[in-house]
């Protein structure tokens, strides 16, 4: 009996160690990111490396805000969708660009994708679902070659509009895919009762299916926002100096300016922080969405 208990204890310890081994790479990389961001330049270039900052500092973050146009685009003339369309001066900056692009692309995708998910689930229009699946398989860069030429021809390069449009390539498939699965899981009886009582299909959708689908909409919104926020390659190709999204701006810090690790890590941390917080807060929804669809943008 005693031997049995010891064996079980050893098993539990072994199991605990293997869980620790599984999550430690993730923890270590993010801790190192924190460490780099809060160390001064002396600590960051020291060898052997300094793991815990000797005097933690916010200097790197201040540096990011002061030297780069991350948050404010210094009140220069800056317009929402290109200068010719809206001549409104706007305190932009890369944060503003990222927010506008990700929110617009996610909002538009929800607007068209929720009804589409409903339509596909109810009418069993599986060719639309298949199309979405093939879009998932295609490399994001391949859409960019024709769209780049189109935007150039239309004179849109250098505004945020091309970015919003190309991000639809990521967000629309995610929303439609998540919503198909969600509407298929809803019971049909309520809607059918409404239809029998003389409601139109639109009313059945608006007043019965839509309220029931709220959790699914939350999943679609979060995933589509995160993958749009994280997208890098569309911005690299389409963004001008003023229309960079945050990931592109951070990459440009690496390539074109004198590299000092502290500010670079601080910038990287700031860019990914919203996503990390969202993941920590909404992990249940994110896990549900990812398990169902295996979706990934771009």
């Amino acid at each position, binding site marked *: 009996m005693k031997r049995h208990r010891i064996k079980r204890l050893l098993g539990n310890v072994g*199991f605990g160690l*293997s*869980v620790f081994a*599984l*999550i430690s*790479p*993730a923890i270590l*990389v993010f801790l190192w990111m924190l460490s*780099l961001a809060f160390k001064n330049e002396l600590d960051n270039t020291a*060898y052997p*490396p300094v793991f815990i900052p000797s005097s933690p500092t916010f200097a790197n973050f201040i540096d990011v805000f002061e030297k780069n146009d991350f948050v404010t685009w210094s009140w220069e003339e800056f317009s929402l969708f290109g200068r010719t369309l809206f001549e409104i001066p706007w305190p932009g900056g890369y944060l503003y660009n990222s927010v506008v692009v990700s929110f617009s692309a996610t909002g*538009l995708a929800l607007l*068209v994708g929720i009804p*589409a998910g409903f*339509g596909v689930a109810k*009418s*069993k*229009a599986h060719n*639309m679902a298949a*199309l979405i699946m093939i879009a998932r*398989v*295609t*490399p*994001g*860069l*391949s*859409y*960019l*070659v*024709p769209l*780049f*030429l189109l935007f*150039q021809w239309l004179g849109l390069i250098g505004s945020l509009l091309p970015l919003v449009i190309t991000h639809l390539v990521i967000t*629309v498939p995610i929303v439609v895919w998540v919503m198909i699965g969600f509407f298929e899981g809803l019971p049909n009886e309520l809607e059918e009762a409404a239809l029998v009582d003389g409601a139109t299909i639109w009313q059945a*959708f608006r007043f019965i299916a839509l309220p029931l689908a709220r959790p699914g909409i939350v999943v679609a919104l979060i995933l589509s926002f995160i993958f749009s926020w*994280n997208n*890098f*390659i569309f911005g690299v*190709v389409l963004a001008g100096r003023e229309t960079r999204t*945050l990931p592109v701006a*951070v*990459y440009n810090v*690496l390539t074109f300016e004198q590299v000092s690790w502290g500010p670079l*890590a601080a910038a*990287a*941390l700031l*860019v*990914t922080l919203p*996503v*990390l917080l969202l*993941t*920590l807060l909404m*992990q249940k929804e*994110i*896990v549900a969405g*990812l*398990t169902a669809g*295996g979706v*990934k943008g*771009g």
Partner: protein
Amino acid sequence: MSATVREGSSGMGLRGRNYARQYWPFLVPAGVIVFAVIVFPWMFTLYMSVMEWHVGGSITFNGLANYQRLLTDERFLWSVVRTLYFTALAVVFPVLLGVAAAVCFHRKFPFRGLARTIFILPMMATPVAIALVWTMMFHPQLGVLNYLLTSVGLPASSWVYAPNTVIPTLVLVETWQWTPLVMLIVLGGLASLPVDPYEAAKIDGASAWDSFRHISLPLVWPHVMVALVIRTIDALKSLDIIFVISGGGPGTSSETMNYLLYLEAFSFYDMGYASAIVVIFFVIILLISLLLFSSRKQAY
């Protein structure tokens, strides 16, 4: 009672079919967008791939010349080989680790939710941000990884700074990033398994390994295959990590198809040739995914 129910449900089915046709307005807005940003680019790419098309230059029809050039372009052919090499490694490691992780996270333990959330953070984090942190960790003189290696007595590695280590190093980052997705898909499969076979096996004195090998693995195999296919497609398409960490270098030693496509289109502005690469790339992805899908029945 049962007769009315049956009658009612068959009537419902009939009406359902009639209604099915009325749902098309719901599909129109998304259909328009999907056509504009997905289907139209596909067709336009096919058209461009048979043209001589340089940005700012003249545009002329040149038949299959772009495709012929692909067949003799050593830089392209090597990029295919590299892509396949990268993909093979970036599928095997995440799938093996992901299945192991799924088995761990399937068991109940304290703080399981928190541990699982931490585990999936790498796949949610902004790829550019984590690529930058890895870049700093790979630094040959000041990087923390070489310090850790040498402090336990191992030789320092040149990581992304040598042609023969660059692809395995990128695979390391890719594995770190995408093992969680495999874990989630397989975990979803494990959660849907019945409990009875395990109880029967336990009564018959099976060990934990036996019940994993002979019950869990066969039952969860379809989910493993789905994860494998998704991972293969994503590894073939992988770009952000390579773009930021190695930039296709040193030389061209980590230049995959996707990276070469970027260069041809947006550095050399040779749109016709880039379009031909897109078409071949798409065919390769489609062939590999079909091959994996058709083989998934045979394994078990």
